[in-house]
């Protein structure tokens, strides 16, 4: 079963690779941020699956830390003043 869970973790990582296309091509600042947000959620899911596969409690600690901090980048951007002209980054 642990092999199945690891394969699922690989699948989650693979979907985030696909979502990276949005980060690269944008076009908007919010699109890029969104992809990184998705990457963070994907990493949490992958860590949960790894924890289920290997029984490693430390993977859970890590997922917990990532989950608590995952909103920080977006908060920092939302607080920063809007870029001067245009908007598309």
């Amino acid at each position, binding site marked *: *079963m642990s092999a199945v869970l690891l394969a699922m973790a690989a699948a989650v990582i693979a979907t985030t690779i696909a979502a990276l296309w*949005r980060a690269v091509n944008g076009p908007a600042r919010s699109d890029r941020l969104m992809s990184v947000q998705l990457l963070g959620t994907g990493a*949490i*899911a992958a860590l*949960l699956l790894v924890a*289920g596969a290997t029984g490693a409690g430390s993977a859970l600690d890590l997922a*917990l830390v990532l*989950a608590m901090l995952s909103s920080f980048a977006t908060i920092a951007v939302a607080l920063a003043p809007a870029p001067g002209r245009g908007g598309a980054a």
Partner: protein
Amino acid sequence: MLLDFWTVAVAALGVLFFVAGTAGVLRFPDPLSRLHAVTKADTLGVGLIALAIVPQAATPLDAAKILLIWLATMLSAATVGPLLARVAIRNGDER
């Protein structure tokens, strides 16, 4: 055995939601609709995966941690959603 079946089935459902979320991020036409994919589908995906892993937890503390991870993910998604929408609107990306 039954629990293992539960783990695999529910986790597979969770992975499916991740695939759906990515499809949404790639296919939806504008940032505000893509926001749905990121904040809803993926949060549901993490929730399902967390639910799937709970029976595999070695100790009650681990199970509590898994639930806390799920809560933190939901809170974070609930915060990030409106903020990303504001960033999108402020920058005039909504179209």
